[in-house]
């Protein structure tokens, strides 16, 4: 019998550079099975996935629209993960931000945009932070696993929002469970006429730049990365590990809160319980694919935005389920993770 063994042996730099490309190719190869099962031709499907969305101005802008919330949540997750805090609660923190924005957008009628937009952003950020606070405190004070608590907080806010929308915030005219419409000045401006691309995209890019600077260029960022890479090493160097994780967790929650503000003020103009579509969870995929680097996460968010848009095209043109996009996304994550892990090994016969 042939016995195989994994042996540690780091891949050369050129091979590492090829990882994203190879990962996409392998993913397409694997997901072809599902494409065929769904009754379509793989090449045609991938043409519609990748090329068609970029071929018209409208659909190319739509890619950016889809990518906007993912950039926020991807950056939020990156910020937490980089410091070794596994925030799985971006989804809930997003909704917390959305609740704050919904309140501002329906309450301060008459305020000019220059006042109401910053107010929404600040309160949305704070709401996200507050929603992240309890798990973060439990983590640093009592060592309660944040993966579980942040996840549970997601369910809690969904029920909270359901209570809001079926109670005090129920639409008085239609009776639907949705909050009152935003007044005009509270709605984000459209960047390109007749497209859905809104101010949120610009804010997302600004957040990316700020976070990049924090992580790579500030003392706190270095301490964060130190804590993320080795708590023992960071503690030995005199870094307050708990404080660093607490701050990272709160900022992460705040950024996720901005995703909620952006979606509600840029797209929906009222709060509904289906606001997100799992952006908080997809943010984990985005952050991981991006290698916990803000720029990498942005690229990953754009790519997933592309696949999301493409999935709708594929579905429309070829009549396959739109969920094929989710299959491609998830497979891509698994393939990339596998490759990131295996790049440090080679297979040897023993």
């Amino acid at each position, binding site marked *: 019998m042939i016995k195989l063994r994994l042996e540690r042996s780091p891949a050369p730099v050129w091979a590492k550079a090829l990882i994203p490309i190879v990962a996409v190719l392998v993913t397409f190869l694997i997901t072809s099975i599902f494409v065929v099962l769904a009754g379509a031709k793989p090449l045609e499907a991938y043409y519609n996935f990748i090329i068609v969305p970029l071929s018209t101005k409208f659909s190319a802008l739509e890619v950016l629209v889809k990518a906007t919330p993912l950039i926020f949540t991807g950056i939020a997750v990156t910020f937490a993960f980089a410091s070794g805090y596994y925030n799985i609660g971006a989804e809930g923190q997003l909704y917390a931000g959305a609740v704050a924005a919904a309140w501002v957008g329906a309450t301060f009628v008459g305020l000019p945009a220059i006042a109401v937009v910053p107010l929404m952003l600040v309160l949305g950020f704070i709401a996200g932070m507050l929603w992240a606070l309890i798990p973060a405190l439990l983590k640093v004070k009592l060592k309660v696993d944040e993966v579980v608590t942040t996840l549970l907080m997601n369910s809690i806010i969904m029920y909270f929002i359901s209570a809001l929308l079926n109670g005090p915030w129920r639409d008085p005219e239609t009776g639907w469970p949705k909050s009152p419409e935003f007044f005009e000045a509270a709605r984000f401006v459209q960047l390109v006429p007749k497209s859905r691309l809104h101010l949120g995209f610009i804010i997302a890019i600004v957040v990316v730049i700020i976070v990049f600077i924090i992580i790579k260029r*500030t*003392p706190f*960022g270095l301490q964060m990365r*130190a804590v993320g*890479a080795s708590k023992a090493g*960071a*503690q*030995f*160097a*005199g870094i307050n590990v708990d404080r660093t994780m607490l701050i990272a967790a709160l900022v992460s929650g705040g950024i996720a809160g901005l995703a909620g503000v952006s979606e509600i003020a840029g797209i929906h103009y009222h709060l509904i319980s289906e606001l997100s579509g799992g952006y908080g969870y997809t943010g984990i995929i985005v952050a991981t694919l991006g290698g916990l680097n803000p720029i990498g996460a942005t690229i990953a968010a754009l790519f997933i935005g592309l696949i999301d848009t493409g999935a709708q095209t594929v579905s429309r043109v070829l009549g396959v389920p739109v969920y094929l996009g989710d299959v491609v996304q998830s497979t891509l994550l698994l393939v990339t993770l596998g490759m990131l892990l295996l790049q440090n090994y080679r297979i040897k016969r023993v």
Partner: protein
Amino acid sequence: MLAVEMKHINKSFGPVKANQDVSFELEQGEIHALLGENGAGKTTLIRILYGQYRADSGGIFVNGEKVNIYSPKDAIAAGVGMVTQHFTLVPTLTVAENIVLGYSKGIVLSQKEIEQDVAAAAEKYGIPTKPSALVKDLSVGERQRVEILKALYRNARILIMDEPTAVLVPQEVDLLFEALVRLVKSGLSVIFISHKLIEVMTVCDRITVLRDGKLANTVKKSETTQVELAKMMVGRETFGVQRQTTHEFIEPVYELKQITLEGKQGFKTLENISFAVGKGEILGIAGVSGNGQGELTQVLTGLVQPNHGTILVEGKDITRLSPGEISDAGVGRTPQDRHEGTIGELTVAENLALEHIKDYTNRSTLDRKKIQKDAAEIIKEFQIKASPGDQLRKLSGGNMQKVVLARALSRKPKVLIASQPTRGLDVGATEYVRKRLLEERERGTAVVLLSEDLDEVLALSDRIAVMYEGKIRGIIPASEATPEKLGLLMAGAA
């Protein structure tokens, strides 16, 4: 017929020869001690017998038959069982469940049946236990007895006990010894790994001493003494760097007063540790690993706060300060394990800057130029083979240790805590580090050297303290210290 015979075992890990032509014989029905310092090759030899390592050459015979042991499964099949220091029990399962785990027949598991089974086995071997109790509710000693019973239940006729007393309180040690003596009478053969002379002389029939990976000797208990065993354990040639003069202890720079650290369940891992280190003096702290040096390092470097006692630097109390504040007070700190005291994912330059990040901050952003420049200077001064931008984890052990040392020394500390500074380093790097420690001594630094390498302690220290079971067993001047004397203190000889 011999229970176990290991013939001419050789095993290397890279350049390190862990076992060189070691032969070992275990007779039927004896308790045979395997004695030696850390790194003497005891663990390697035993892992080869238990199938966790494969010997490069040599043969293993069990009950006179040649066996090929490639995995613990093979070892168990050959009748060899092992009880390690870290137990492998599932806390949330019962004693009976743990014992039959992976060894039960059939598909349906009858709780009652296995409990009767285990109770019968406990009766047969004379090991009292409660089959229906949950393992998490048992004391450490009780858990160990479950481990022993587990091995016996799997028909082990040869039992390896890897430092079984390290985790036990004295009363439980007595219980363990009683159980072992009883088992041996019923035909079990035991390999007892230890570095405590007094235990070895209490419970064992014969003793094999390993030293530097080679067989030193095998002797009968009745024909040896603690002093002789200590000599066998530590008697080897020293090499390389050595202090030329002895410094007189003048004024104390660094003082520990009555430091006590309580571990779990009120067990004292450090008890009333007091010493003072003078200007330009190296105080060596010797001891077999696991006698509190790790905990002491953690207290000295500020990772753990002691329950009682004070630490002074030039008369100033630094006891409750954070690691960063301790550095600022003039204490250069090196970690016991260089991998745990550094961050492998970050660059050499970042690791060097991390501890004093305030000095590298310019208008609230990192002064990356200064970080690079200072790192380049330190790298040159300490002859580190790396560039500032290299990831630390890609460095060799010697270069990594130089980074650790450079980080502490570049601040010109008044006190240096050097914990296991040459562990795992090759000869060249070891010499460099030792030379550097002596240079610090000449500069007037008060150096605390915690090392399990007795040669190192003897070669460098002005005075030597020996730790045993969390206490300082005595501080003696280097002029009076001999390997034998230290060996006896280290092994807790009465």
